C-alpha cells in the first residue's frame, strides 16, 4: 500500500529563520563535514523595501531529495540512489568513483566533492539519526522551528500538519525537468531565480559516451559476432574431413 511507504521531506518556513546558522554547525558536527565544505546553507536574500518598511529573508537550503532526482540519473556507478523505503537520496561512498558527473546534474547545486574523501557528498537527511527515529541534526537544532522534517505520506506528521496550515506553499521548480522536490517553503514566497536553480547539465564527454561510443562498440562487436557465427555455420555444414584421422 502506497501510504505504508514513507516519504521523508523537509518543510521550511523562512520567516522563522533568524540566520543564526546553528544548523550548519550541527550538520558539520553530526556528519564530519570538512571545514571547506558544507552540506546545507542559509541564503541571505538581502534587504528589501524602503526605510522604515524593510524586510530581509533568510532561506535555509539543502538537498530536496527529489522524487525524480537528476543526480541519480547521472551517476554512472549507481553510487547515488534513492532509498525505496523512505525516499532519502543517499551516496554509497564505496561505489562512488569520484567522477563528479552528479555535481552539474543537480539543478539545485547541493552536491560537492568532499575535500577529505575526494568523493561526492551532500545532505543525506542524517540517515543515522532518522534510523533512530530522530530528526536530522539541522532540524533538531533549529531554535526558531524554521526547519521541519518528517514523513509527507503520514497526515499526522509535523510536516504534513505544517503544510496543511500553511498560507503559501512553494517547491523550487528546476529548469526543463520535473524533479519533484520534497522540500517545501511555506508562508513566505521564495524566489528560485535568486537561488540560481538551473537545468541539469550533462558534459559533452558523457553525451559522446552514451550516444556514440556505446552504440558504436555494440555494433562492432555484434557485427563481428554475426560474421563468426556465419563462418561457424559454414564450417559445421562443411564438416571436418582433412583433419580427422
Amino acid at each position: 500500500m502506497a501510504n505504508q511507504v514513507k516519504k521523508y521531506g523537509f518543510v521550511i518556513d523562512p520567516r522563522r529563520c533568524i540566520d543564526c546558522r546553528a544548523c550548519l554547525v550541527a550538520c558539520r558536527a553530526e556528519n564530519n563535514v570538512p571545514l571547506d565544505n558544507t552540506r546545507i546553507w542559509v541564503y541571505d536574500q538581502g534587504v528589501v523595501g524602503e526605510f522604515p518598511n524593510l524586510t530581509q529573508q533568510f532561506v535555509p537550503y539543502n538537498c530536496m531529495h527529489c522524487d525524480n532526482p537528476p543526480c541519480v540519473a547521472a551517476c554512472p556507478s549507481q553510487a547515488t540512489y534513492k532509498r525505496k523505503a523512505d525516499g532519502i537520496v543517499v551516496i554509497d561512498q564505496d561505489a562512488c568513483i569520484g567522477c563528479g558527473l552528479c555535481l552539474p546534474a543537480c539543478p539545485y547545486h547541493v552536491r560537492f566533492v568532499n575535500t577529505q574523501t575526494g568523493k561526492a557528498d551532500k545532505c543525506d537527511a542524517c540517515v543515522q539519526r532518522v534510523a533512530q527515529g530522530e530528526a536530522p541534526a539541522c532540524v533538531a537544532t533549529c531554535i526558531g522551528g524554521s526547519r521541519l522534517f518528517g514523513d509527507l505520506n503520514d497526515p499526522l506528521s509535523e510536516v504534513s500538519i505544517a503544510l496543511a496550515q500553511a498560507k503559501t506553499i512553494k517547491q523550487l521548480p528546476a529548469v526543463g525537468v520535473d524533479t519533484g522536490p520534497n522540500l517545501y517553503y511555506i508562508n513566505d514566497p521564495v524566489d528560485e531565480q535568486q537561488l540560481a536553480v538551473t537545468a541539469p547539465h550533462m558534459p559533452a564527454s558523457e553525451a559522446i559516451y552514451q550516444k556514440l561510443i556505446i552504440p558504436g562498440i555494440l555494433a562492432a562487436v555484434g557485427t563481428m559476432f554475426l560474421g563468426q557465427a556465419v563462418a561457424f555455420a559454414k564450417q559445421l555444414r562443411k564438416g571436418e574431413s582433412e583433419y580427422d584421422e
Partner: protein
Amino acid sequence: MSDEILSLAERKRLRAKKIKKHGLANILTHWFNVASWVILLSTGLALLANPNLRIMPQGYIDFFSHLFGGVGQLVQAHKVFGLIWLFVISYNVLLGFRRYFVPFARKRMLLTSDDLSWFREYGKKLLGLKYHLPPQDAYNAGQKAFGYVVILGTVTIGLTGLIMTFAYLLPLELRGIVQWLRPLHFLAVGGIVTGLVIHVYMAAFFPEEKSAFFSMFNGDVDALYARLHHKKWYEDKLKEERAYELKVRLEELEAREAETPETEKQATA
C-alpha cells in the same frame, strides 16, 4: 593457409613433428590474462548499471552486485582485480623486457609487404574471390593487427583504470578528466573485445588452427601446421635445426680428433 599439395605420408610425418612456439612464461601469462579478462569484463559490464549506459539486463547486474555484496563491493572488487591484473602483466613484461619483449617486438610484430598483401588476399577470400595468401611469419598479418589492438588497448585500459582507481586523490580541477577516461576505458575494452570474437573463434572452433590452440597449453605446434600457416617461420626453424645439427657434428668431429692418440695420427700420415 598455403595451397601447396602434400602427400598423406608427408602430412603424417610433419604432423608428428613438434616445434616449440611458446615458452612457459608466455603460456602462464596468457591464461592469467584470460582469467583476469573473464573477471574484469563480467564485473565491468555489471558496473554499467545506469539505464543510460546499461548493456546487460538488470538481472545480470543484480546477480553480480549481490554476488559481491553490493554495488560498493563490486566497484572495489573491480578495482582490486584490475590492480592485480595490471601489476602482474606489467611485471611480466618488465621482467622479460630484454629477453622476450624486445626480440618479440622486433622479429614478430613488424608488418612486412607480405603482411600487407595478406590483408588484400584475405579480403578477397572473405568476398569469395580467388585468392592466394602469401607466406607468413610466426604470426600472420591478422594476428599482428590484433596484437597491436591488444597492446594499445591494454596500455589504455591499464592507464585509464589506474587513474580512475585513484581519482579521489586528484585535485578538484582535474576531476573532469575522469569523465573522459570512462569512455576511453570502454572504447579500449570494446576494441579488444571486437578482435577477441575472432581470436576466440579461431582458437576454439576453427579446425585449421587446432594446433595453435593446443600450443597455448603445451607450447608446441606441429610442423604441418607451421609449414602450411607460417611458412617463413617454419623455414627459419628448419635453418635453425640445420645449423644446430651442423654445430653438433662439427663438435663431434673435433672431439674425435682430440681423442685420437698421437702415434695413430703419425701412422695414418
